[in-house]
Structures are given as structure tokens and as C-alpha cells.
């Protein structure tokens, strides 16, 4: 079987500021991040011949391409599943480049998610697409928001593992601690305590406000090229060692309740199996991770699904300080989506690039291999990135 492992690399990344009101169009955010990523890589925009993004991104490939003065776009693809998409465009880029379909692939995600629309609101359900009729079937019972759907999963997780709200508070405190020393984070200089978490208002019991990611405006882009090309460019290549999607039997969009285990777990485990097989690495080979935190408590089954601790033991793994910088598996050093911003996981990809280059503000010493994950509780994706 042809392998794409280590044959492509992230050569550049770019981002806008993260805010609650960007003051400009989403397309402009996408273009700014894309041009910034290309400049970072030292690649002229006219060389871009591939684009991959999320189906939920509102910016047409051809419009981004027009704005950057593109010449000949040969590959454009989109991945569904909201934040479950995060790492899949990296896989698309790696596949396209390894197969010779494209040479320079830009991945972007740009959104005015706070100032122009809000994901936390009840989901709309017209027209009757295959996804919408499922949302409506659950909506009839008042299950209408991502927080409530993940809360349903986490209640069962708590019941089966003994994890408590105080365990979940530990992650929220960690994310805000990391964000507090990251000038790009919305919550820069604003750490919280366990008491703050416990005092925050209930959103979808067991999820509190401080368990929820932010609503954000902003954009992130990365540029993927062949490993050979990347070695001749400005930045240290960040190799795509593995990238996978996962949607096992019983997976649904935030409502996978019709199978034995309803935790936000099975999709991640499916992606993990592929990642470790592709890369030849194991969880102990990973120096740090970006674990998707649309809702902080989902980090717990995520740590288990990706093999960092046994099923049901994340509460102890977190309580023992393993996620701190200096711990066994530092995660979300940028502050995660609770602390930095919610750009559908793409800001986590950018943080992994910084960590692997050694240029992050909350740098983990000697990082060589990192896991990056996407939204859980939905068909998902993940990647292992690394440097020589």
C-alpha cells in the first residue's frame, strides 16, 4: 500500500487575531490568514494549486483563490462534520500531494462565529436533508444544542467512570492558565480557579459555562507541500506523520446514542488506530497534544481514546498533573478553545506547528512529535505531526 506518512509537511501557517468582533468579512479573514501562511512559508500565492477546508466554512475556494491572485486551482475539497473536520483537510492535502494531483495546498478556516452567527443556538432544521431530519427527530424532545448533546454523553461518562464536575474543573483551570500567558488568547491574563468554574452558570447540566468553548471571530490557515519542497523553504518542516478520519458503526452528528458506548470516544478511537498504524508511533512517543475542547469535559474520554490512559482513568491522569507543561503529556498549551479561541480546531493545528518549531509562547521543551485531534462526538479526524 502506498503510504503518505512523512511525505508532506506543513511549511507555513498564518492567523488573524482572535476576537468577538473582527470588524471585517469572513472572506477577508480567510484571505489574510492564507496570505500570512504563504508568506510564512516563503511561497508565492500564484503557486497555490490546491485548497481544502470545512463544509461549514462560508468562503468559496474560488473567492479565496481570486483574492490571492491564484492561477490554476487543480484540487479543492471540503470535509463535513463541523469541528470533526479539523485534521481531515491535512489528510486531503497529503493525499493530493503524494498522488501528484497538487503541489501547494492551502487549508483554511475563517469565521465570524461570534459577530455574525452563533453555533451555541438551537440548530436549524430545514430543508429535510438526511442530517436535518435526524436533528429534528431529537429536537422534538428539546435536544437542540451542541452543549446539550455533549452533556448527554458526558453524564453517562460520569456515571460509568466516577468522574465529577470537579474533575472537569481541573481541565478548565488548566486551559485558562495556559491562555493567561498567551497574548493571542482571548483570556490572556485571566486565569480561573476551581471555585470560578463551580460558580459559573449551568448551560446543559453537567456542562457549565466555563466548560464551553468560546464563540469567536478569526481565521487560521496552513500551507502543505511535499517533504522535499519543505526542506528548501524558510521554516523548519512540520511533517504530517499520519492523518486519519474516524466514523465507526453507530456514529452520528453529536447524537450517537444508539450504540453501546455513547461517550465522545468511539470516533476518536477509530482515528487513533489508524494514526498509530500509519506513523509507527505509539502514545508514549508523543511529547504533547492538542486535544479538541469544544467542551472541556470531552477531553477526558479523548485522552482515553487516543491511548494516553486506560478507559475511565482520565480523571486520575488529569488530577495527577500530567497535562501541565512539564507533565507527561502537556496539552493545549495555547489555552485550547476554552482559553485562546474557537476556530474549529485550526488554532490548535497552528499551536502544534509553533510547538514543533520551538516558537510557542508556552513552549514545551524538546517537542518532536505531537497529536492534534478534532471535534469528538461526531465523525472526526486527527493527525500526528513531527519534526526531525
Amino acid at each position: 500500500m502506498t503510504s503518505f506518512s512523512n511525505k508532506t509537511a506543513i511549511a507555513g501557517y498564518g492567523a488573524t487575531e482572535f476576537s468577538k468582533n473582527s470588524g471585517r468579512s469572513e472572506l477577508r479573514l480567510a484571505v489574510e490568514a492564507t496570505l500570512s501562511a504563504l508568506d510564512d512559508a516563503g511561497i508565492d500565492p500564484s503557486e497555490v494549486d490546491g485548497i481544502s477546508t470545512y463544509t461549514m466554512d462560508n468562503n468559496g475556494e474560488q473567492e479565496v483563490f481570486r483574492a490571492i491572485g491564484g492561477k490554476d486551482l487543480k484540487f479543492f475539497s471540503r470535509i463535513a462534520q463541523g469541528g470533526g473536520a479539523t485534521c481531515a483537510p491535512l489528510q486531503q492535502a497529503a493525499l493530493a500531494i503524494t498522488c501528484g494531483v497538487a503541489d501547494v495546498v492551502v487549508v483554511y478556516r475563517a469565521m465570524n462565529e461570534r459577530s455574525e452567527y452563533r453555533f451555541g443556538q438551537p440548530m436549524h432544521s430545514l430543508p429535510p436533508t438526511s442530517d436535518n431530519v435526524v436533528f429534528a427527530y431529537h429536537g422534538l424532545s428539546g435536544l437542540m444544542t451542541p452543549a446539550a448533546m455533549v452533556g448527554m454523553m458526558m453524564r453517562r461518562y460520569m456515571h460509568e467512570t466516577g468522574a465529577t464536575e470537579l474533575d472537569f474543573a481541573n481541565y478548565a483551570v488548566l486551559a485558562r492558565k495556559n491562555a493567561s500567558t498567551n497574548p493571542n488568547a482571548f483570556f490572556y491574563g485571566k486565569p480561573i480557579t476551581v471555585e470560578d468554574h463551580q460558580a459559573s452558570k449551568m448551560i446543559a447540566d453537567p456542562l457549565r459555562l466555563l466548560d464551553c468553548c468560546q464563540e469567536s471571530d478569526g481565521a487560521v490557515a496552513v500551507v502543505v507541500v511535499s517533504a522535499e519542497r519543505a526542506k528548501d523553504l524558510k521554516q523548519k518542516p512540520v511533517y504530517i506523520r499520519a492523518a486519519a478520519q474516524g466514523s465507526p458503526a453507530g456514529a452520528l452528528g453529536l447524537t450517537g446514542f444508539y450504540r453501546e458506548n455513547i461517550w465522545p470516544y468511539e470516533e476518536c478511537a477509530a482515528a487513533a488506530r489508524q494514526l498509530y498504524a500509519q506513523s509507527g508511533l505509539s502514545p508514549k512517543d508523543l511529547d504533547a497534544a492538542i486535544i479538541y475542547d469544544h467542551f472541556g469535559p470531552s477531553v477526558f474520554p479523548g485522552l482515553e481514546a487516543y491511548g494516553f490512559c486506560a478507559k475511565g482513568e482520565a480523571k486520575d491522569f488529569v488530577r495527577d498533573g500530567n497535562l501541565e507543561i512539564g507533565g507527561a503529556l502537556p496539552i493545549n498549551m495555547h489555552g485550547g478553545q476554552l482559553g485562546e479561541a474557537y476556530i474549529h480546531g485550526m488554532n490548535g493545528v497552528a499551536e502544534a506547528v509553533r510547538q514543533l518549531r520551538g516558537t510557542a509562547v508556552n513552549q514545551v521543551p524538546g517537542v518532536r512529535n505531537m497529536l492534534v485531534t478534532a471535534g469528538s462526538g461526531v465523525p472526526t479526524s486527527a493527525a500526528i505531526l513531527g519534526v526531525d
Partner: protein
Amino acid sequence: MNAPVDKGHNAPCSNRDFDFFYRGLEREELLAQKCDGCGTLRTLPTPACGHCHSLNWSEAKLSGDAALFSYVVHHHPPLPGFPAPHPIVVADLAEGERMVGAMDGTDPASLRIGMPLKVEFLRRGDVAAFRFRPA
């Protein structure tokens, strides 16, 4: 414009795989699909049987008896027709399948995983609906 098609229900978003479920609620019946090929029950509708691939199925009336498998209590944002805080549950049905149902009208503090449930029918505006109550 064609005249609106009478689907036999007022559910806001349905298709021909789901219509039977909402028509059942109009008659105060909780329905699932039962595969004509192998007899497998499925609650969340889908056009084919994942086991035997038959496209043929019949309506099967569920007892509405269940046990609470998991729950969430929705607080925010406000949802039309559901005064907060209101619980929603995943229920293990007596017939062996799972089903999502509302539990508004029951004190959230009284909920326990494993507690027995029974179904209750109601209308939410123009829409025929159901919810679970403690059995």
C-alpha cells in the same frame, strides 16, 4: 405553487423515512421501524436495514416502557416551548432499542440513571409529541 402535501403530521422537518413516526404521534402511538427481512427494530429511522439490507419495513408500536440510560438538563439558551431547566433523556426501551425523549414536567433533581420510565403523549403547539415520565 403546488398545494401543500398533507403528510398527516405537523412536524417541522421530516422526510418520507421519518413521516410515519410523526403520524404515529398524532395517534398517540410511539413507533419504530421493524425490518421485514430479519425483524430487527430500529428507532431512529433509516431507509434500509443495516443487518440484512432490506428496504422493506413495517411500523411497530413500542410499549413506551423504558429505563433511563443518560440525561442532560438544558438550561441555556432558551428554547421555544421548553421552560428551562428541562431534562432530556436517552432511554433503554423495553424492546431493547434506545430512544431520545423529553422529560420536561419532571423535576430534574429526581432523575436517576436506571430509573423506570413510561411514555406520555402531548401536543407542543401544532405538533404531536411525546415525553417520558417516571414509571
